[in-house]
């Protein structure tokens, strides 16, 4: 296999991986949004849809949603400007997916020489960077792509030829450009301290020590930059409290009022994909991305057997805990009520209210659900067993003898660290959405222009002064580049 061929194939594989990474988190987030909303607002969340009695805590609800959207009619209203109207959701979605391609999700996989030469036809070992495109202007690319996202929403608003859509699109354009400014000012301070815009270099710097993580750099510059970036990310994703573009109480659905079926779904998924991307860029820039605190890639590789044992113990205990909770569910009042109803004499409750009686009767027929606890206990117990198996693998020093296995374990570990950070960021989005009310338009513009912009400017100055003083005294950050 020739060199160029290999490069192209690797690039394609990484593209598909990054697409899958974003797209598989999206349904999870839709579930988390509903579940989180239910917990925060103290009401029942998704709990009805099931496959053979397995509801997976409402996770299954996303599936019927997808089928519903696929089989809905794709209404093309006659009053829209067709070309731009059709283009808008595609721009929204692709921009969200493409932005992810500069984010590194692990340091690298070093395929050992013997395997690489035999199967891939290279000379010597092959180092695969775990990032779709390692370009010089990595962070600039992210900023550029997020600003392209405005087009999707603005074109949708304008071409729909609907007053609600137009107002939504206008608001969105004004909001996104305003906060892009604050975001741009926020990252300048980070450019200065890191001295680069390459995301892989930024990651290497953060691998050195936890004190090099973005939020902790030259305090409080990193922290302020993070707050500016994070608030702007909320506005760029059009998430509450900045979701005026689709403010449903006043604008029906804003810019996507005239869209139906999967065209609407594209906007809907783009919002969640944007959340994933915003969280991963934030994790990369400020929270050490794929780094586990105090443990960098070199240390992971050196003590791979210890790492396996640690993962085995931690994961095993965690999944045993999960299994015990699932096992405890068999005594759930829900099941207990059904058991009581099944007895020779019906439950005393049943005749009380017609609705209650009907509900119990319906559940009684639905006996499949009573087996849910068994399935989950089995799954979690299996996961616990697999993790305890890892302890054995680590104790026998198998991984340290096999370079490729070591690399794969390091990759999976780092990817998991990254995913945890990304999911926490996404949870922040959901948390805030169901906690804060929506801003008024003038408040929103005031926050962006009158507060965040000058704070960003002062932060740049502060970062400059910090570095100047540091260069002449402690030289803490002299070794960074």
């Amino acid at each position, binding site marked *: 296999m020739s060199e160029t061929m290999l490069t192209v194939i690797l690039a394609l594989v990484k593209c598909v991986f990054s697409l899958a990474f974003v797209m598989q988190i999206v349904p999870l987030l839709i579930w988390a949004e509903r579940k989180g909303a239910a917990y925060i607002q103290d009401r029942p969340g998704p709990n009805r849809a099931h496959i053979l009695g397995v509801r997976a805590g409402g996770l299954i609800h996303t599936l019927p949603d997808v089928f519903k959207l696929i089989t809905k009619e794709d209404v*093309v209203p006659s009053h829209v400007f067709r070309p731009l109207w059709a283009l808008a959701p595609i721009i929204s979605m692709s921009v969200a997916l493409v932005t992810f391609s500069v984010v590194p999700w692990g340091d690298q996989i070093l395929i050992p020489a013997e395997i690489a030469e035999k199967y891939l036809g290279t000379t010597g070992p092959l180092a695969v960077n775990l990032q779709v495109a390692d370009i010089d202007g990595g962070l600039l690319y992210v900023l550029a792509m997020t600003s392209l996202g405005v087009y999707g929403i603005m074109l949708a608003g304008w071409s729909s030829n609907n007053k609600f859509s137009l107002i939504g699109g206008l608001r969105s354009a004004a909001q996104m450009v305003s906060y892009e400014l604050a975001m741009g000012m926020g990252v300048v301070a980070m450019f200065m301290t890191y001295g680069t815009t390459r995301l892989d270099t930024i990651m290497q710097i953060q691998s050195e020590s936890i004190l090099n993580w973005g939020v902790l750099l030259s305090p409080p510059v990193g922290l302020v930059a993070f707050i500016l970036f994070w608030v702007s990310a909320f506005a760029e994703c059009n998430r509450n409290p900045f979701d005026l573009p689709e403010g449903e109480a006043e604008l029906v659905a804003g810019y996507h009022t*005239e869209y139906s079926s999967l065209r609407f779904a594209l906007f809907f998924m783009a919002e969640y994909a944007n959340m994933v991307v915003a969280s991963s860029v934030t994790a990369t820039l400020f929270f050490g991305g794929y780094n586990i605190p105090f443990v960098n890639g070199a240390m992971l590789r050196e003590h791979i057997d210890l790492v396996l044992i640690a993962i085995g113990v931690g994961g095993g205990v965690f999944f045993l805990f999960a299994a015990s909770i699932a096992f405890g569910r068999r005594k759930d009042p829900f099941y207990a009520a059904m058991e009581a109803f099944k007895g020779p004499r019906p439950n005393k409750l049943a005749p009380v209210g017609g609705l209650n009686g009907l509900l119990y009767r319906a559940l009684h027929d639905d006996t499949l659900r009573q087996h849910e606890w068994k399935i989950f206990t089995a799954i979690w117990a299996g996961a616990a067993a697999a993790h305890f198996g890892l302890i054995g693998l680590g104790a026998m020093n198998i991984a340290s003898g096999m370079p490729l296995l070591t690399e794969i374990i390091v990759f999976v570990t780092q990817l998991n660290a990254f995913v945890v950070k990304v999911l926490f960021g996404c949870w922040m989005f959901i948390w805030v959405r169901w906690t804060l009310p929506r801003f008024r338009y003038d408040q929103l513009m005031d926050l962006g222009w009158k507060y965040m912009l000058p704070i960003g400017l002062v932060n740049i100055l502060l970062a400059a002064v910090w*570095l100047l003083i540091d260069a002449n005294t402690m030289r803490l950050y002299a070794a960074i580049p």
Partner: protein
Amino acid sequence: MGVAYLPILFAVLIAVVFSLAFVGLSKYFGPHRPTASKEAVYECGVAPVGAANQRFSVKFYLTAVLFILFDLEAVFLYPWAVVFRDYVYSSVSGAGIYIFTEMFFFLGVLFLGWYYVLKRGALDWD
């Protein structure tokens, strides 16, 4: 150099094909029964008054112009920010102070511009 950007081209292609496939899916599986009321403008239930593409507040235009002004100045900051630490930690004496004062005045002008815009009321929404 250019090769580094090749994967981005792939990513764009894959993303666009993915989105197009999505739209095609509902075209294929969904019913297609257009009626007059389905195709009407989605507004309040009464017949829409006037076209949607009317004139709108000049405030939005002002925001756009201000954005272009400030964003261009932010773009000028980026190259400076990236080389800043090279100057500051270089062995040449005074290099750090030099690059700092240069940009201090630039930031000062930016700040004055922002203050002017603020006082002229361009950022007030009524």
